[in-house]
């Protein structure tokens, strides 16, 4: 098999799990708090930013991707890329419609 075998059970210690869990809770608290502060356009950006970092933590540690094979990482990356393409290219139509005909 060409894929390397580093997948072979990297056991993540519970201490890391607890840390991540705490970070996630803190992140949730910050999002809720931030939504009550008027930051203008920054509000949704902060909310999404925190959501993205929380998701990244979950993916990297809870889902063990930090210790996973290149193939797994590539797979996730491909998925995210296409997700962005779907959202981005569809939105590009909607945004540019507002620009008028030419």
């Amino acid at each position, binding site marked *: *098999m060409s*894929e390397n*075998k580093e*997948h*072979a*059970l990297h*056991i*993540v*210690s*519970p201490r890391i*799990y*607890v840390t*991540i*869990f705490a970070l*996630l*809770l803190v992140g*949730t608290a910050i*999002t*809720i708090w931030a*939504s*009550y*502060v*008027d930051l203008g356009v920054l*509000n*949704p950006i902060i*909310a*999404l930013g*925190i*959501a993205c970092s*929380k*998701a990244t933590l*979950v*993916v990297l*540690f*809870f*889902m063990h991707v930090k210790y996973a094979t290149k*193939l*797994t990482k590539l*797979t*996730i990356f*491909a*998925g*995210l890329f*296409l*997700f962005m393409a*779907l*959202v981005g290219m*569809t*939105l590009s139509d*909607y945004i540019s419609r507002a620009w008028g005909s030419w």
Partner: protein
Amino acid sequence: MSDNSAIADGVLENAHDEHPAHLRHHFHDVEQQADASNFAMWLFLLTEVMFFGGLFTAYLIYRNWYYPAFVSASHQLSIPLGGFNTLLLITSSFTMAMGVWCAETRRKSGLVLCLILTFILGLGFLGIKSIEYSEKIEKHHVPGFHYSLNSFLDPNSDAAAKAAGDKPLPLDVARHTELYFSLYFAMTGMHALHMIIGIGILGFMIFRASAGAYTGGHITFVENFGLYWHFVDIIWIFLFPLLYLISRH
């Protein structure tokens, strides 16, 4: 959507026994088998990402078009309930991760405990979700024939809108709140459906785990289910700010 469990079934097959004699006939070794099912699970999660991708696209378009309506409509959701649900789900993700660790380190009672905790937390999430849903049903905020604009045309008649200090919306703006609730129900509904499926599988796993099925070294099933459960958690991590936390100041 029994597809998740189907994948799991295929994988489950592999988890029977550590003895190479019980290795599925078409694999060279246990390692290849575990690798393959893990990769398959990731691919399946990709399809889930794209599945929710369509919903997120729709959400972003209409949020941009009808921002004022989305703001008022989102004020109908309760942050304490939503926040508590986030807490439950994150905790359940944590217990699930610990469950995988227990399986890796062959702690049977730990695994069973973690799975039961995850199961309870998941049920708790659904319970709170159903409280939220029933409130929407009472207020006629379910899109369709019975949809009512009262809370938005006359915020004083509505406790949540009043608390958020909403101004009455003109009819043409208020009408677009229905789109918000359509997306709210579509997105949280799809998410809840995934939770229900997950909880079903969890129940099955608790049963199997207490028989010692996953603590003999073959943990693929637990691992893959963990991935699924964390994925569902991630979806909620995005749904929460997008649906609950629009312009609360």
